[in-house]
């Protein structure tokens, strides 16, 4: 019961053709998918990642400044259907792209790139209620400025990821998108709802 040489050649040809079609069509499908959503990853003009308070002030200016909440965006929560609108620093977004209108911002970091990736990777379903960004407030229990006061921190899924938990339930599914764009995830210090564009603080 040996296979015929002609049949084997046809199988090889079929595999080659199918592989070639997949390789050619897959990027086109991905491109069409992104174009349909009006999104492109830009990575334009990211500010340097500050370490420690002095560098945060050097890069982003004083807490509670007008720049700290010059840009705003809406972020939908998958569980309650609400869209949370919050402000953040103009160096972390607000630059005009296919998806983001011109908000006077300097980069594409948060609203285009991080959010765009989460949306296009179909991870938005993991972002739950309790979402906020800029807040001119101290760190809880003290009088040192929070990274939220600089507009360089975002809390997501607060109702699912309480501060003090050293594990994550939902944010673990998209935290890598923040990390890939220069952010630090608060799970490092048992605050899994928290993401900040700063280290050593």
């Amino acid at each position, binding site marked *: 019961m040996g296979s015929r040489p002609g049949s084997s050649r046809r199988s090889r040809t079929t595999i080659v053709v199918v592989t070639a079609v997949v390789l050619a069509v897959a990027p086109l499908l991905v491109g069409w998918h992104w174009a349909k959503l009006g999104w492109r990853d830009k990575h334009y003009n990211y500010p340097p990642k500050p370490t420690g308070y002095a560098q945060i002030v050097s890069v982003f200016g*004083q807490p509670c400044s007008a720049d700290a909440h010059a840009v705003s965006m809406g972020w939908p929560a998958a569980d309650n259907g609400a869209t949370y609108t919050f402000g953040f620093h103009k160096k972390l977004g607000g630059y005009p792209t296919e998806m983001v209108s011109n908000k006077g911002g300097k980069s594409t970091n948060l609203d285009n790139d991080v959010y765009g990736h989460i949306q296009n990777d179909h991870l938005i379903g993991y972002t739950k209620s309790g979402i906020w960004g800029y807040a001119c*407030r101290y*760190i809880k229990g003290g*009088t040192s400025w929070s990274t939220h006061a600089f507009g360089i921190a975002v809390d997501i899924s607060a109702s699912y990821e309480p501060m003090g938990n050293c594990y994550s339930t939902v944010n673990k599914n998209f935290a890598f998108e923040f990390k890939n764009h220069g952010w630090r995830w608060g799970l490092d210090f048992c605050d899994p709802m928290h993401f900040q564009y700063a280290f050593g603080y």
Partner: protein
Amino acid sequence: MKRTVASGIGLVLGVLVALGLLAVAGHTAPQPYPYGTPIGPKMARDTGAGEMLVLVLGGVYSTRAEAEAANSQMSFGDVAGYYVVPVGQFQGFREEIGSPGDFALVSAFRTDQGAQEFAVFAQSIGYPATILSSRVRSLGGQYAGLGQEADPSGLGPLTGPTRASLP
């Protein structure tokens, strides 16, 4: 033959060492919050004694214990939320709220804008936040969150009295 045995032993030892290192790394749990004193400066606990302040009210309670318990249920993540204060430490406060209790959850501001921003922030998380209709006079006492608002210049935080807050 000896070389094969030696290679086998080496391989097993290598795998065991690698597993040991992985186990050690796996048990390195993150530090619970607070994870250390922030390097940034500590601001003064400004009470604004004598100033006319705007209060955002989160609730009024009969006892301090009740107020503390209610406050502990209102999480603002890592940022400061409400402060528990006696109603009596602000002149005009009781006239504003009636007599439902002696302790309140508040955050104090010098500007209407600062109070408005905090109220919107608290409400967006789902917590009560009522801006008192009239300013009240601070008699000093416990810290009530003053200093956490933007200077109208837009350059940073407001750190001193304004024309509206001076009596």
